[in-house]
């Protein structure tokens, strides 16, 4: 009886297994990777519609799929579809000359009109592209985007088949960097109208390719397969890898296991807990976004807390009390502590970095508790309190990732330890949190902002009417310095004005820099030329897999 049972058991298990297998559709062995294939675990894309995307993850892949006038490679602007470009003396007109032999993947010629149409789609009020405001420096672009003038009035023209001319609202000597960083992809009008703008980039067949690769397979939230595009103008010399596979692996543990098992050659973003484990394979990149504390100086959760936050000495106390180095260690060692809002990667004028050449006075990165306590004492006196425990209830708001939680706790803990100030950490799902940010219903908000391509980009976003400032801080002196710095064409004067603006920014302590976000990639030793810049883009034009 027992034997029969055991036999039956084995039989049922077999049947179960076979039955289980029988329902699968796919089949066959995966082809093993050769040096022609590069496989990477990446962060995924939401859409490949270049008009409607609002995520740098999408641009990372679009970089491989579309040619651009100029693009970033390893921190430098390089010519791509444009053979050359020039700026007029008044820095108001930028002219890009396209090279010969540009074609779409369907064989049609790629002309200046395609770049003009690509720009138009970004600004068209009918389409509502989230990127529109990035291009408001172009003449009449903002008016066109608001439906006030026709497209003819906008400063983007195709002078002939090979020349694109941009006319700007105000002089700007770094428009080429903006083009490379913010991405103007060409769009073929006939094709876009056939598939419909909303369907553009929603599947393999609804994109016309012009870049180093074409996409042959795309499973949303899962994987993308790219094949080398022989029609790309520089296909002979660039993008040597034949097939690129991008896999979206959400679980960091799985990602590392696949890396160890050789199922992926690289990982776009390593989780911090594996830094030590995979230290031999890591490749660190700084930049992308700054983490800030936004002190709400114009209202908050209560009238009392608004009064406290409006006190300059109190804000200084909060800033001086923070050991930013320690915070970075606690959250992610790839982050770089910062006390002023300029990306340390930005070059200065004499070979060094901008921050070194044009320094400002600020708190030390490891904090200064004694000074913080002095500021607090002053603040309490001005506000009429005798002790920090009498301060009203205050909160610090951010979104609900584990990383933000660690960060928020590290910050509130230091305030409590060093100053005896209690601030309540509140976390919400991202949509709700950002909604609160714009409603200004918080005392302090913990949020990032992109540093973009030059010092003044971020500074401008923080001005009274700036994109990043929901109206929690306003300083006319700062606003005017930033405006002057942007309009100034002399590089040295521009840098000095920028330096002054940064000093005002730091002194006001309304928006307090914490650190420059870093990210860590991992790649196998046999992968060469692996570049993922701080600016968007899988910059794989020289990537080789020597396996």
């Amino acid at each position, binding site marked *: *009886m027992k034997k029969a*049972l055991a036999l*039956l*058991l084995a039989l*049922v*298990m077999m049947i*179960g*297994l076979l*039955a*289980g*297998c029988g*329902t*699968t559709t*796919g*089949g*066959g062995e*995966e082809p093993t990777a050769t040096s022609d294939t590069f496989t990477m675990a990446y962060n995924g894309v*939401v*859409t490949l519609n270049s008009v*409607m*995307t*609002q*995520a740098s993850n999408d641009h990372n892949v679009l970089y491989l799929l579309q040619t651009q006038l100029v693009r970033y490679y390893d921190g430098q602007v390089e010519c791509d579809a444009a053979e050359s470009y020039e700026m007029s003396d008044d820095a108001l007109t930028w002219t890009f000359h396209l090279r010969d032999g540009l074609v779409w993947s369907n064989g049609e010629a790629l002309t200046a009109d395609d770049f003009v149409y690509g720009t138009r789609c970004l600004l068209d009020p009918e389409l*509502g592209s*989230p990127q*529109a*405001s990035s291009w408001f420096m172009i003449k009449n672009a903002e008016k066109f985007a608001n439906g006030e003038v026709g497209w003819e009035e906008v400063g983007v023209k195709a002078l002939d088949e090979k020349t694109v001319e941009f006319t700007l609202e105000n002089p700007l000597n770094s428009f080429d960097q903006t083009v490379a960083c913010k991405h103007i992809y060409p769009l073929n009008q006939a094709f876009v109208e056939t598939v419909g703008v*909303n*369907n553009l980039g*929603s599947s393999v067949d*609804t994109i016309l390719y012009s870049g180093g690769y074409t996409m042959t397979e795309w499973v*949303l*939230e*899962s*994987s993308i397969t790219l094949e080398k595009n022989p029609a790309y103008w520089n296909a002979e010399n660039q993008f040597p890898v034949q097939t690129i596979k991008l*896999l979206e*692996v*959400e*679980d960091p*543990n*799985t990602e590392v*296991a*696949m890396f160890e*098992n050789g*199922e992926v050659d690289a990982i776009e973003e390593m989780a911090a807990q594996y830094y030590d484990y995979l230290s031999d394979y890591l490749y660190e990149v700084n930049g992308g976004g700054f983490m800030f504390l936004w002190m709400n100086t114009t209202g908050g959760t209560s009238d009392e807390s608004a009064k406290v936050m409006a006190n300059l000495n109190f804000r200084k106390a909060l800033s001086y009390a923070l050991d930013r180095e320690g915070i970075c260690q606690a959250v992610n060692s790839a982050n770089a502590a910062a006390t002023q809002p300029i990306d340390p990667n930005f070059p200065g004028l004499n070979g060094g970095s901008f921050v070194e050449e044009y320094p400002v006075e600020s708190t030390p990165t490891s904090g200064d508790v004694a000074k913080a306590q002095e500021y607090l004492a002053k603040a309490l006196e001005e506000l009429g309190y005798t002790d920090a425990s009498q301060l009203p209830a205050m909160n610090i708001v951010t979104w609900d990732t584990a990383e933000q939680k660690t960060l928020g706790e590290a910050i509130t803990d230091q305030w409590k330890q060093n100053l005896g100030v209690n601030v309540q950490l509140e976390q*919400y*799902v*991202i*949509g*709700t*949190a*950002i*909604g*609160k*940010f714009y409603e200004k219903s918080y005392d302090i908000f913990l*949020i*990032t*902002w992109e540093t973009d391509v030059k010092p003044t980009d971020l500074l401008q976003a923080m001005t009274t009417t700036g*994109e990043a400032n*929901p109206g929690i801080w306003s300083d006319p002196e700062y606003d005017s310095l930033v405006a002057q710095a942007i309009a100034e064409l002399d590089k040295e004067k521009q840098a000095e004005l920028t330096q002054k603006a940064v000093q005002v920014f730091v002194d006001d302590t309304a928006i307090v820099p914490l650190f420059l976000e870093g990210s860590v990639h991992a790649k196998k030793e046999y992968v060469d030329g692996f570049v993922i810049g701080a600016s968007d883009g899988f910059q794989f034009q020289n990537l080789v897999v020597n396996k």
Partner: protein
Amino acid sequence: MKKYILKRLFISIITIWLIATCCFFLLRTLPGNPFATQQLLSVEMQQRMMSYYGLDRPLIEQYFTFMKNLLHGDFGSSLKYTGQSVNGIIASTFPVSAQLGLQSYLISFPIGILFGIIAARHRGRPIDYSLVAFSVLGVSVPVFVLASLLQYTFAIKLGLFPVALWSSMKHTILPTLTLAIGSIASKTRLMRTLMLEVITEDYVKTAKAKGLPTWKIVWNHQIRNAIIPMIPSLGMEIVSILMGSFVVEQIFSIPGIGAYFVNSVRSLDYTMTLGLTVFLGVFVVSANFIIDLIYGLVDPRIRVTK
């Protein structure tokens, strides 16, 4: 019978309508909007996006548009994944989750039942204890621990299967096992209890007294009676199996429907959340409807004639 079916059908439709309506209005009470993301957009830009998707119109007008489309089986297009229709996403992800669920069910159901029977038949003996131990372990070990354990043993150490992804039959085995083990464990426990209940019943004693062979007693009088109470839970179980497992799909990087349930709510993708909820609702309601009918066939005592 016909009247009963019609009545149940009517109730089902009302239920689905209620689900859709409640969900629609509840979602809109959540603060924030779908375009408020970490990649900050200015308030004006958010407004532009809202009006592009028609989200700035009066709520009641949006509701009627939604209902009208729903009647045509159209869930609209996702707010997060530009250009992707909710129907399209369901159509591509549901089969994956369903395959995974079915595979694990086809393994776990027969094995679980069999283990239960064996344990009950050998009550108090070593084989019973080891099966009970297995089932307690299987029920209590979290699925993500089990998944990592299987990944580590079979993919990294033994190199038998790929760590993750979903592109060939080989890829499906580890996730299927992960899901199946827990399910086998819970079925073993349930079936064991049910068997032990019927073993002491009078009709079993009668059968024994009649001198029937053991296998006949077990098959005809014990198993068939023991299995009946498992049927009502079958409806919900099948639904939950087909709708995928968020955790297993995430760990094995499987492009199933599970992740969308969680992520669409978090990113306030209204259309996606609504579409998925209604889809799930229809599934649950119809599964229960069918199970109710089948139940009557299996157990004559509960036949709905009146």
